[in-house]
């Protein structure tokens, strides 16, 4: 019985579906016309994106003095947003790579969109360090190129350069992993396209995928090896991002638990973003039979786990800051000083959104509710943004000397660029949802017989 699955497991595909029904359901959003809601969402996102681009041009034209930075806080919103976006990206790789290695079938309904989210989020993340350079046209100086300024090379001892290698490897490997998985699905759209233009585009995108037995054999091997490579890769990316802080000697940053805690936080925030996006998408694209309550519950379980790791890390940081007895540790981002100081609002936002709210997910009713999951995911998105803001702005606001004490206030440009990246992200995601097969239909077809509702029912009835 190659297709056996324990009756106690809930079905992953609801209703009575055939292979052809899956094709129809996943091709429908691409072949149909966009509805009014899609256009409203698209235009709002587009407006935010253009506003953000305007702020970027203003920054580049005038200089980064238009941001709320000073000699004491040399990075604040930009690096906060960078870490936030990179962290969001992590869930996509976790779903497509780590869950593949663990043979989790529920990943198949959500991996495509989660990985699209990864790629679009890493685009946004990459913008910030490049704009922060002030002269983005020199961004290629971060590459180890022989140059005309003497044979001075990039510094391979620096975590910032490790970031360049980690993020670019991560982005490009995620992209080919995603695209390789897309080939059979683009081929499916190509083979049923009726409009010549559409046929041409999807022929081009599918690279001439024909679905030979040998192709599938290689496809599965390549997916497995890529998953094996992407798993340590995704862990390395946020580890290296955390080293941007952890290798410094600032109180509050110089912390050996940063790498695992940042990775857990990244997965936590990424799953929250997947939950936010899919909560909307399953409704808009009528894919409720594929992205089910069970998927939402599984994601919420990952959120509780990683959120728990983050909470323990916060408690450890708080305890250690107090336990040192050092007055310099009393104004790190998790300390009595920051809980009662001028940044108390940021401190308590972090605790409420990131630690207290997710605890609601211990209740099965809430964890299986679409609307509650959606609301909690928004809270976590906000909370995880505050985590990075607190680590950066609170820690930097009180240095060792009172003369360096300074409060960061964002300007409209800081805010504008951040809103712009959110707009840009949603523009990309909305375009994706209309033109790409949003569910890995070839993979979903392989689990139809083991995890489809009607097949399961048929089998269970026969066993009784």
């Amino acid at each position: 019985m190659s297709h056996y699955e324990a009756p106690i497991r809930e079905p992953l595909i609801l209703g009575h579906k055939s292979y052809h029904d899956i094709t129809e359901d996943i091709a429908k959003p691409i072949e149909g016309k966009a509805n009014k809601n899609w256009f409203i969402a698209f235009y709002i996102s587009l407006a935010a994106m253009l506003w953000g681009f305007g702020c970027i041009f203003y920054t580049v034209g005038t200089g980064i003095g238009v941001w709320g930075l000073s000699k004491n806080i040399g990075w604040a919103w930009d690096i906060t947003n960078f870490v936030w976006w990179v962290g969001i990206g992590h869930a996509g790789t976790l779903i497509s790579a780590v869950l593949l290695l663990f043979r989790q079938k529920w990943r198949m309904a959500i991996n495509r969109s989660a990985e699209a989210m990864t790629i679009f989020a890493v685009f946004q993340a990459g913008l910030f360090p490049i704009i922060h350079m002030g002269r983005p046209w020199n961004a290629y100086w971060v590459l180890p190129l022989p140059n005309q300024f003497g044979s001075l090379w990039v510094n391979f001892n620096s975590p910032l350069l490790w970031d360049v290698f980690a993020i670019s490897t991560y982005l490009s490997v995620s992209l080919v992993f995603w695209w390789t998985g897309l080939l059979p699905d683009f081929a499916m759209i190509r083979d049923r396209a009726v409009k010549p233009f559409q046929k041409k585009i999807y022929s081009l995108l599918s690279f001439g995928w024909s679905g030979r037995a040998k192709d599938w054999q290689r496809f599965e091997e390549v997916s497995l090896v890529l998953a094996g490579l992407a798993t340590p890769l995704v862990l390395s990316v946020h580890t290296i991002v955390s080293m941007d802080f952890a290798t410094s000697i600032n109180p509050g940053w110089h912390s050996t638990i940063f790498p695992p805690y940042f990775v857990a936080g990244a997965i936590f925030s990424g799953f929250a973003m997947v939950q936010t996006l899919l909560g909307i998408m399953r409704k808009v694209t009528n894919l409720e039979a594929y992205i089910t309550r069970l998927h939402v519950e599984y994601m919420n379980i990952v959120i509780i786990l990683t959120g728990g790791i983050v909470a323990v890390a916060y408690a450890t940081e708080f305890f250690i800051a107090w336990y040192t007895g050092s007055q310099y540790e009393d104004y790190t981002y998790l300390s009595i000083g920051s809980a009662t100081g001028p940044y108390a609002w940021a401190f308590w936002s972090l605790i409420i959104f990131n630690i207290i709210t997710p605890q609601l997910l211990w209740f099965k009713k809430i964890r299986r509710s679409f609307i509650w999951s959606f609301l909690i995911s928004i809270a976590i998105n906000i909370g995880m943004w505050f985590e990075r803001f607190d680590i950066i702005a609170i820690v930097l606001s009180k240095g060792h000397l009172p003369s360096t004490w300074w409060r960061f206030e964002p300007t409209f440009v800081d805010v504008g660029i951040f809103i712009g990246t959110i707009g840009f992200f949603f523009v990309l995601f909305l375009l994706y949802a209309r033109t790409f097969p949003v569910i890995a239909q070839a993979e979903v077809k392989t689990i139809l017989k083991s995890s489809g509702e009607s097949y399961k029912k048929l089998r269970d009835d026969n066993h009784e």
Partner: protein
Amino acid sequence: MSSSKVIHAFYNDDEVVLDAVKKVKAANHHIEEVFCPFPVHGLDKAMGLAPTRIAITSFMYGITGLGIAIWLTYYTMIADWPQDIGGKPSFSWAENMPAFVPIMFELTVFFAAHLMVITFYLRSRMWPFKNAENPDPRTTDDHFLMEIPVHDNEKELKALLTKSGAVEVHVIDKEAH
């Protein structure tokens, strides 16, 4: 010219096509190709396809990437322009190696992943503007297509395929196309 003739047998179930492949193989016929809309486990073994060696290439590419990373960090940081960074002078690569571990790891993954995927695309003959070669558009939807060359045994093959559960059987002259 019977050698350019092939039989296209369509199936609409993965288990049926797997059994059919085993039956056709047992009757000692050569299966030219099976086109599938999704991977069918055990099909490659049933068809007698050799295991793919693409994971081995990935390992070799990864070793290459690691070598390049070692050479790059050695050449730039130790040999060409050594600097004293943060009180950690660059006298030898081995002593500075811990700081290069992230670069060594990333370049290993970069080479292993990208070159393997490029190898896959080239070996399976896939690239932009390449025309698809599946004979029927339904093979990316819900049909499986088995292609068998005909050598004066058309009737026998047709009977065998129909018996094995094929929903459609066509004889096609490849040269007529």
